[in-house]
């Protein structure tokens, strides 16, 4: 995907369609609209993106309220219900993996834990890792990318080579190796806390070059623009130019990349948990559920379908929303 080129002139020159719209409004005076406002207007008209956004919001609310919701339903994610398991086969009794009024999405084979509660709690891990590692990547990528683009020379060479190196690094294998030598306690965290912390750091760390490259490229093209030259000739300092002149114009690509990065991170977390190096049991995680469902995919397909669908919906929603944001922020967009 190429980075959407942001033209600073967009603010001053609304598209033809909008001009027409403004003209037909007639009585209303022509007034300048902020970039954010234009983007929002466009986003509102993109039904698919809006749906994605709503689903994302709902997911966030569900994740935050997971303990409350499970309490309302009267289920605990780690409570065993072996009375619902057929001792001969180890699979839930009843149809569709033991779906009932008490267990809305059925129960796990062997131990009978409530799948609905575990899916809700799994959402917390997925979103937490997805968001936080994106934050880590954005901070690192923006700072280093802008430095590389603005200063050029050996700073640029150094940072660019580091990015090349990181992009070629076998990230998944590295995390698997790292987890096996990791202590059980660090920085006051234990068990799952340590794993989540390390996953956020590592996924974020390996993700920053993607943003870093885009930011560097943008900075390279922006720093020679007239308005930057003007600021420079008026005696503006480097920091002023970096933060006041360049950074605001980089917001759009950064936002777009962030929304695109979150679903990728969620998938990485699921893959790690699937491989057994994610969160520790009994903490629920979608990837882990998928992995233990393999042994029952024929006898209890529901167990595999539910976390699979959860991952699918989440990633799809984020991607739809991200696409919408990109289109909305794209000054060349016709809508």
């Amino acid at each position, binding site marked *: 995907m190429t980075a959407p080129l942001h033209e600073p002139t967009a603010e001053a020159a609304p598209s033809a369609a909008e001009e027409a719209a403004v003209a037909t409004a007639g009585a209303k005076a022509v007034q300048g609209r902020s970039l954010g406002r234009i983007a929002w207007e466009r986003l509102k008209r993109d039904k698919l993106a809006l749906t994605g956004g709503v689903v994302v919001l709902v997911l966030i609310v569900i994740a935050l309220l997971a303990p409350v919701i499970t309490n309302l339903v009267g289920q605990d994610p780690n409570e065993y219900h*072996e009375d619902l*398991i057929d*001792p*001969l086969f*180890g699979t839930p009794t009843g149809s569709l993996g033991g779906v009932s009024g008490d267990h809305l999405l059925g129960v796990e084979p062997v131990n009978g834990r409530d799948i609905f509660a575990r899916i809700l709690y799994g959402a917390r891990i997925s979103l937490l890792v997805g968001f936080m590692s994106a934050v880590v990547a954005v901070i690192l990528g923006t700072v280093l990318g802008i430095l590389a683009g603005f200063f050029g020379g050996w700073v640029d060479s150094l940072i660019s080579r580091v990015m090349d190196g990181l992009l070629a690094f076998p990230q998944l294998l590295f995390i698997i190796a790292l987890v096996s030598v990791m202590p059980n306690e660090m920085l006051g965290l234990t068990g799952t806390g340590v794993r989540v912390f390390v996953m956020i750091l590592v996924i974020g760390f390996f993700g920053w070059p993607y943003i870093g490259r885009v930011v560097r490229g943008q900075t390279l093209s922006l720093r020679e623009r007239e308005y930057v030259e003007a600021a420079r000739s008026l005696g503006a300092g480097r920091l002023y130019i970096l933060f006041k002149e360049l950074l605001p114009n980089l917001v759009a690509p950064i936002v777009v990349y962030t929304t695109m990065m979150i679903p990728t991170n969620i998938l990485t977390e699921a893959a790690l948990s*699937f491989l057994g190096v994610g969160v520790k*049991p*009994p903490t629920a995680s979608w990837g882990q559920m998928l992995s233990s469902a393999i042994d029952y995919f*024929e*006898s209890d397909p529901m167990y595999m379908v539910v976390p699979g669908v959860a991952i699918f919906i989440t990633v799809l929603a984020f991607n739809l929303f991200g696409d919408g944001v990109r289109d909305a922020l794209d000054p060349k967009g016709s809508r």
Partner: protein
Amino acid sequence: MTTQRTSGRRKQALAAAAAVAALLTTAACGGGSDDGDGGSKNGAAGFDAANNKVAQASLAKKGGTLKFGAAQDADSWDTTRGYYGMMWNFARYYSRQLVTNKAEPGKAGAELTPDLATGLAKVTDDGKTYTYTLRDGVTWEDGKPITSKDVKYGIERVWAQDVLSGGPTYLKDVLDPNGTYKGPYKDTSADKLGLKAIETPDDKTIVFKLPKANSDFEEMLGLISASPVRQDKDTKAKYQLHPFSSGPYKFESYNPGKDLTLVRNTSWKQESDPVRKAYPDKITIQFFSDANQLDQRLISGDLDLDLNQTGMSPQGRTTALKQHKANLDNPVSGYIRYAVFPQSVKPFDNIECRKAVIYGADHVSLQTARGGPVAGGDIGTNMLPPSVPGSEGQKYDPYELNGANKNGNVAKAKEALKACGQPNGFKTTIAVRNNKPVEVATAQSLQASLKKIGITAEIDQYDGSQTSGIIGSPENVKKKGYGIIIMGWGPDFPSVQGYGLPLWSSKYIQQSGNNNYALINDKTIDGLFDSYVNTLDDAGKAKIATEINHKVMEGAYYLPFVFEKFINWRSDNLANVYTTDGYSGQYDFVNLGLKNPQK
């Protein structure tokens, strides 16, 4: 004996893609149950028909290809180095011993019978001298006779642990407890037969002179590691790729992890061998990376049986139990699955804290996690497997694990915690192999029930292929704080010594590769083992075994989960099938035959 690793997490990951694809294409699993317990129209003998009894012996015909499948290759096919139970079982195809397990079902299969020797040992000198005479007409695969010197050389190889590691070392420990002999590769005598404890006065006679009597010595000679090896054919570490055959079959080809083919050894004569029937002409093993794939091939009839004999995976098991029950047997494996508490990790130095875990655990839940009463086994109540003389099975249940405390006894557990000085519970870590999903499931079950009594347990899934360096190192166990270790153990030979010595004797606490995880250092138990080896009558041996078991249970070092059971598959085409206690409830491979050799 050690357990085999089943396919690991990584392999599961590869399987995932296939699993999802299969899920999408599986519309509905058709077909009703075609058979009950009494045999099927396809000719399968019926559910449990080969469990401790012989099924369809008369239908076995000479010839054909017997097809094994396996998810796991042997640790080594070298007779000196193999330690997997299935390797010992399979090795009888290409190796013979002075004495071996009887080719009979059930308990009788664990008794010894003469093989290369004309009879069981002549024991003299208060149990310190064992004398055997070799049978006439026993030959190697090139037709040369097997001599007593070949037997001695084969046994001497056990001393060369630096080159040939991995196998059981009982013979070395008993014949040369001080380690004075350095092994055949460092032997300075011309014929490399410098071991003083074994004498070969002529080619037909072999005499073992023990420094100290050991009542299980003949059992140790029945192990595969006591097989003869011919010096001019010994390729040392490479021997495992092509062992030189003394049995009815010889190696034709072997690609580790891929396939293995045995063909008839034309030099072997039926009349020289009272044990082996040698029905098929050819024996093949095909190795799979994925247990589910193996189960599918078994069910479809492409393969005759699973070499690993560790039970079908949950997927195949469900299909088989629903549609092909007549092809299944449900034997007791001889393994006990358990949790063990290293005393070096606080607070498990205190017996009351150990008892708290034993009382607090939900034993039905643990059994379900192991696979339930059929595929997992009966609830374990003590630490002596049912196949070992002196065991009392579920009758000996000092903590009422199969009785009043079946579902965990919170009140009793809290009482024990108070007595231990930890009334509010404590924190600990459960160590479990990451490549055994069933063990991880038991760890989670234990974690859930311990939470109810205030014990917070963290689960640490370590690399299952590194067992001996991780949980086998007491220093590492202490450092990592592994208060609870999940493991399993089966007897090397059916006696309390063959099962419990490495687990419970203070002499077996090692810095690496340790199996006495609990670090039991109890003079009474050590003393009982000492008197066991001097006791020559079976009744006396059984009595001591019972006593040792009671002492171990009274120490509360272990929380037994199940007396393990398996669901094993036998194809429609197999005949003369039976399980044997000699190989932990596996089918006796050496006498399997085919009904239709053309198939």
